[in-house]
């Protein structure tokens, strides 16, 4: 069922994913196609639902959120609504900037930001530990992001 894309599409996507801020003329040049072709291909990829969005990236650190913690949860699976209830409640916590679900030892991961450690402790005690159906929590504190790319080996 996958949509047919050719080498030109792949080349355009590869360059776009590697450098999302590229304007169409620069992207066209790097991919070795004319601007008109590049623009038409991007339209086609968007219409086919392959290119979904271009989102601005917000740097929370520049807004004073110095702490970022990856919280890994195991949920109580004897409760049939564990996932739904937990995720619905996590969405209500403003400092949660990402929610992921997994198949593996970890069920859900929340990405939580805080202004400093005191603020983090407050969020953790008041908003995180009170989330429903938690059976275990592990925390990984972010020290540095070494690589962050949406690139695909196309």
């Amino acid at each position: 069922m996958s949509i047919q894309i050719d080498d030109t599409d792949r080349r355009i996507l590869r360059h776009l994913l590697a450098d999302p801020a590229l304007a169409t003329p620069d992207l066209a040049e790097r991919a070795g196609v004319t601007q008109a072709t590049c623009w038409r291909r991007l339209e086609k990829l968007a219409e086919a639902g392959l290119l979904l969005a271009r989102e601005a990236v917000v740097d929370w650190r520049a807004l004073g959120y110095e702490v970022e913690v990856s919280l890994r949860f195991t949920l109580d699976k004897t409760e049939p609504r564990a996932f739904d209830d937990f995720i619905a409640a996590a969405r209500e916590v403003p400092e949660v900037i990402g929610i992921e679900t997994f198949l593996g030892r970890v069920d859900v991961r929340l990405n939580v930001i805080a202004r400093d450690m005191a603020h983090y402790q407050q969020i953790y005690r008041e908003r995180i530990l009170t989330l429903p159906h938690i059976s275990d929590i592990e925390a990984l504190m972010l020290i540095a992001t070494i690589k962050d790319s949406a690139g695909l080996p196309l």
Partner: protein
Amino acid sequence: MTLDLDDLDRALLRDLARDGTLSAGELGRRHGVSQPSAWRRVRRLETAGVLKGQRVVVNRTALGFGVTVFLGIKLATKGRVSLEDFERAVTAIPEVQVVQHVLGLFDYRLRVVARDIADFERVLRRRIMTLPGVGQVEANVLLSEETRPGPLG
């Protein structure tokens, strides 16, 4: 040092986080301000580093990458293999999208894309397990993900 945001700044950030291609004119219309003043606000957020470029969201599955796995990696031989060597080698792997140095149960967190589980096994065996200093590895297969607007409300 931190920028003070008002309601308009927060509204602009919320909109742009969903669609980074919105023009100053469109942002102004949505929030009842002129195009030049919306442009100045966005410019100020960019200059302060709050708006840090764009992210392209693609349908990975439709492009043939049906599997995304998060790996927790613990280094086996800390002190003997430098973190720089590990980081240089891991960032060069095309299937590895994200590398984070973390503190806790693991030393590094990786986001890895693969065509399917067999392809993931190839990446894991040939690329990840052969990294300098790699010790315990834990894999969790991503089922769903959502980005939240964060404390901009």
